[in-house]
């Protein structure tokens, strides 16, 4: 690729050659994010250490006309950090400093490579940072910004976008901008969070933190099937209770997770419902008793209440181990992230069971019962001919069922590469065009994480003015929509 060597030399000048990797062995760890089925080595991986270096790197790419992908910890589950063969991978992992902790004003400022859990730890024990993806020990705040990450506590507490109060951003032309909540003008902050690295890269992030709850009570209830567990959830919501977290696991995922953790989850149960109440002690106690009653009324076989922090930890450990533990019951699986209106849960789960039976495959289910975010785990054995392809088709059917039920193709993992083909099931052409207008306003040349989110490649027209053919159009490589 013409100019590649020059660009790489320039990047080495900016970051130091020890932080620019081009050798295939050095690039191997960066070729995938959390979705190992997508693999691609970039032209080079560069690890800037400061915001100034990030700016200079992006500027260098802009001047060379070379696209780039930003990567945090590489734990994403939609291939959002999948590199481009002819692009640079900008890895933010070295930028791990917590820049400011201001508990008086309930705020912290961090670099993008800081892990999610590190934020909560920095403000503990009086405060915590609520968006808590299961990968929080490893996943980075920068990545959380890109995906608008949620986590188990988001039904009550909200998502990353509700907690970001300011961003310093490098835009695709290498310029810098600052977005603040409540600054007059368009909500650029709100547009940027969840934009999957396609509008720029954040170099400093201000987050809101909140007081840690006074009281936390956790139980896990076992039910004969997901339908009755679902009824318990409905009753809880109808009672006006907003639990801190409410998670469900089905028989298959219970089995896998229990094998991994030995926490004592019942293997004869069709469903496990983990409910956590948190808040002021008076409210918490009363709500908790209500929840226990409602679970019993919905037919719970058994109710285990965490009596101390260690037991609470174990109950959660099992839930969080579910994805990783699936390897014990299936050689491989696709992780999905569909959302449905909670009231459609029983119906969609039944549909998934029917589909799984029709495809002759097993689907385990772990999900955030409060907000209807399902994580179907479509299991397969790639050593059996055609099974991987069947599993992929089944995964697609499941996504479509979610959209048909009034839901979404992704609740927290993002579209990335993994789900862009499904964007048209949710959005019509005018909607996709509107998304594209926003993206072009930020990145008219298309250098920031191209090939992600949008289902088909599009160019950004000049707005307004006389028509000018883009070089790629002239070459017959791209078409203007």
């Amino acid at each position, binding site marked *: 690729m013409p100019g590649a060597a020059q660009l790489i030399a320039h990047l080495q000048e900016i970051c130091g050659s020890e932080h620019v990797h081009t050798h295939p062995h050095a690039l191997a760890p960066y070729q995938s994010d959390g979705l190992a089925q997508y693999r691609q080595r970039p032209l080079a991986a560069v690890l800037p250490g400061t915001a100034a270096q990030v700016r200079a790197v992006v500027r260098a790419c802009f001047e060379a006309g070379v696209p780039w992908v930003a990567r945090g910890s590489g734990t994403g589950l939609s291939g959002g950090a999948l590199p481009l063969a002819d692009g640079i991978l900008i890895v933010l992992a070295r930028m791990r400093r917590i820049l400011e902790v201001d*508990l*008086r*004003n*309930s705020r912290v400022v961090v670099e993008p490579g800081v892990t999610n859990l590190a934020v909560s730890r920095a403000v503990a024990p009086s405060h915590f940072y609520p968006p808590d993806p299961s990968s929080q020990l490893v996943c980075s705040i920068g990545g959380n910004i890109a995906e608008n990450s*949620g986590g188990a506590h*988001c039904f009550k507490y909200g998502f990353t*976008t509700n907690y970001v109060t300011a961003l310093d951003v490098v*835009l695709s032309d290498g*310029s810098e*901008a*600052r*977005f603040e909540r*409540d*600054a*007059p*003008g*368009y*909500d650029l902050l*709100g*547009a940027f969070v*969840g934009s999957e690295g396609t509008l720029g890269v954040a170099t400093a992030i201000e987050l809101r933190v909140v*007081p840690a709850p*006074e009281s936390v009570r956790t139980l896990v209830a076992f039910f004969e099937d997901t339908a009755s567990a679902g009824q318990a959830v409905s009753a809880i*919501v*109808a009672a*006006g*209770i*907003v639990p801190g977290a409410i998670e469900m696991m089905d028989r298959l995922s219970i089995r896998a997770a229990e094998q991994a953790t030995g926490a004592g989850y019942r293997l004869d149960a069709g469903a496990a419902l983990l409910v956590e109440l948190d808040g*002021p002690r*008076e*409210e918490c106690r*009363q709500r908790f008793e209500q929840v226990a009653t409602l679970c019993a009324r919905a037919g719970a076989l058994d109710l285990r209440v965490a009596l101390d922090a260690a037991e609470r930890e174990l109950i959660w450990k099992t839930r969080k181990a579910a994805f990783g533990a699936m390897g014990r019951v299936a050689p491989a699986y696709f992780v999905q992230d569909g*959302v*449905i209106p909670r*009231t459609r849960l029983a119906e969609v789960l039944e549909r998934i069971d029917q589909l799984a039976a029709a495809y002759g495959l097993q689907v385990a289910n772990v999900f*955030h019962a409060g907000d*209807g*975010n399902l994580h179907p785990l479509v299991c397969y054995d790639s050593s059996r001919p055609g099974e991987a392809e069947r599993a992929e088709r089944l995964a697609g059917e499941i996504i479509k069922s979610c959209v048909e039920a009034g*839901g*979404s193709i*992704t*609740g*927290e993992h993002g*579209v990335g590469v993994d*789900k862009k083909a499904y*964007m048209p099931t*949710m*959005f*019509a052409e*005018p*909607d*996709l065009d*509107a*998304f594209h*207008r*926003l993206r072009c*306003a*930020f990145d008219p040349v298309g250098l920031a994480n191209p090939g992600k*989110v949008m289902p088909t490649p599009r160019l950004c027209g000049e*707005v307004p003015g006389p028509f000018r053919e883009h070089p790629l159009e002239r070459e017959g490589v791209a078409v203007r929509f």
Partner: protein
Amino acid sequence: MALLAGATKVLTPASAQEAAVMLAEAAAAGGRVRFRGGGTKLGWGVAVDGDWVELDVGRLNRTLEHNVGDLTAIFEAGVPLARAQAQLAAAGQRLALDPPDGGATIGGVFATGDAGPLRHRYGAPRDLILGITVALSDGTIARAGGKVIKNVAGYDLAKLFTGAFGTLGLILSVSVRLHPLPEAQVSARGVAADPGRLVEVVLALSAAPLELEALDVAWSGGRGAVLAQVAGAKARRRADRVAALMRERGLQEVEAITEDEPLWAAQRAGQRTHAGALVRVGARASELPAIIAAADAARGTLVGRGGVGAFYLDCAPAALPELLRSLPARAHPVLLDAPPELRVSPEQVWGAPEPRALELMRQIKRRFDPAGACNPGVFVGGI
């Protein structure tokens, strides 16, 4: 509200489709279009003379969906907020948004990003919106988001249009997240003449794990108050805890109040001008004394969200320069409610945004409204 020079042609579409067509036609004819819901905030933004086509969305007033078990609803833009709340209350729910009402519509509340005391716990309109349907000036009708609480598919155009003052297009309907109506609400209130004491109470209450619904301050004539609301089955007991904290930290006349609606109505009333010029200010919670000092310098009054740092300062127009001069550097003052002769330039109303951010906003505006038909000149930077 003073009338400006220029003629207004009012159109009243009967449906979202018709509204989209009318907008496109007006834009194609080179017209300047603005949108009217309850007409309560047309006097916000830069006062621009000239002829307008006014799209009155009063007939787009249906509740499209209310999904009780899912805690979501979809409202057309012309639904009055009060009617929406009444409907939701019948099912024991609410949209946790309590700006000053006066006949405001859902569309107007979201287009201006107006909020009230519940902002403390539940956020601003942008934190409650799940999805949006909009009409653009080129005839496009587009949707973003959805109707589920958790959704990261696509770009968050719902947030982009929220607070955009109709400059990107017409909001046709919004999908929102609901909350259960609390069983009981009790407030606690205490007063002090020392801003330092007030801010320490606010900070202590912000840091306490009390899950307050609202945490407000008020200041007038050398005296101020901290107000806090709790909600839930044990509201009274928790309000007593709040009151105890207030007393511990030296507030006077501390009391728990069960009939607290008038208290909060007064806070909301303080978000509209009485003296002639109302400025909205953003600041850190710890900066309250500096904001109070600015109010004093202008002999004005203040209400606002003490914990969040969103304040409203009301003063006489003649005192406005003094007020603005006295505010801390980072305060982003916005002249929200004032006579047109004070709202002549974008800088006077909106301040000067960060240049690169403003450039991005111009690009966004150009792409969503290439004809420049949607509320031109009214917004930040004269967009």
